[in-house]
């Protein structure tokens, strides 16, 4: 079975570690971390990814900008995107989903919820 690649774009090292910790329970996945939107864009453009987990509030480039750039690129637009954010308002959720996010999870996150969402989206890439 081919290994699948997941990109975590999150400025908080604590959250990156927690998400990576949870996602490593999935089999056959490689996890790459990026510390802000710009770093995320560089990494997603230079390699193949099957899933991206993106925070909204980040320095340098925020998550919404990153999502719109990813969805605007022909070779990247099909990557499933999960937003993980502190913003719980409906309008924030609607904005992210309108930009092309597949799922919207609010903090504090539950590892089992992240795992379930990641599993579903990765399955669709099989």
């Amino acid at each position: 079975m081919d290994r699948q690649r997941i990109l975590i774009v999150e400025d908080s090292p604590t959250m990156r570690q927690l998400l990576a910790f949870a996602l490593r329970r999935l089999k056959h996945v490689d996890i790459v971390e990026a510390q802000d939107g710009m770093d995320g864009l560089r990494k997603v453009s230079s390699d193949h990814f099957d899933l991206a987990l993106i925070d909204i509030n980040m320095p340098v480039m925020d998550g919404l900008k990153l999502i719109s750039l990813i969805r605007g690129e022909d070779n990247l637009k099909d990557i499933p995107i999960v937003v993980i954010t502190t913003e719980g308002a409906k309008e924030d959720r609607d904005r992210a989903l309108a930009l092309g996010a597949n799922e919207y999870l609010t903090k504090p996150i539950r590892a089992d919820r992240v795992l379930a969402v990641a599993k579903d989206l990765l399955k669709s890439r099989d």
Partner: protein
Amino acid sequence: MGSERDDLFAHGEEFLQFFKRGAEFTKELLVENERLRGKLATLRQEQSDAARTPEQWEKYRKELAARLNSLEQEYEVVRARLRQAEEENQQFAARYLEIEEENNNLANLYVASYQLHSTLDLDEVLKIIVEIVINLVGAEVFAVYLLDGSTGELGVAASEGAAIEEFPPCSLDSGVLSEVLETGEPWCTEPTQSANLESPIVGIPLIVQQRPIGLIAIFGLLQQKDGFSELDHELFSLLGGHSATALFAARLYSQSERKLNTIQGFIDLLTK
């Protein structure tokens, strides 16, 4: 004369064919007869095996009833075992969920403690505490108070949701937060809809070797967070212990660094 002979031969041949067919038919009849005889013998045997008298019929009926009864009992036993297996299955499923939950909680606690002890830089430690309180607890408005050794007062060292100067001073003599420091135990109350900087909803004392060094006060939660879970209480305890030691170690380290630099500067001055 020749023609009469030919006719005679033809009749003879015809008779011979007729006789052969008769012989074959007879053979077939004999085989069929044998088969029917066998069938009759089987039926007779079955008849003789079956009840010959009403008593025998009664005996057979009782045997069959007993067999039916035994099968019904067996069925009940199997059903009971199935019910038991289903119950066990449900218990295992519930236990699995519990273990999953514990596993997730432990992951959060592990990551929090790992991050807290990953640096000896005071600002970094404060940043990590803020990250944990936002991302793992789900707080929106809070402050980290540290005790000033020289003045003996609590001052805000880091905050989120409002500027440092907006947070009220924390008195050591009165108020819920001073009680938190006195008891040394994390405290929390029902969260409110909006944050009020005068009314904390969580107080986490930061204590090292029975000596308070500060506290974390939470005034408001993220809008999607509507209460505190078991994990939150564990996080409060972890934050109380591990944040305190991480802050204490970072302070000691920065003081020793400063002293080392001063001594090094002094030595440089003397040796020049």
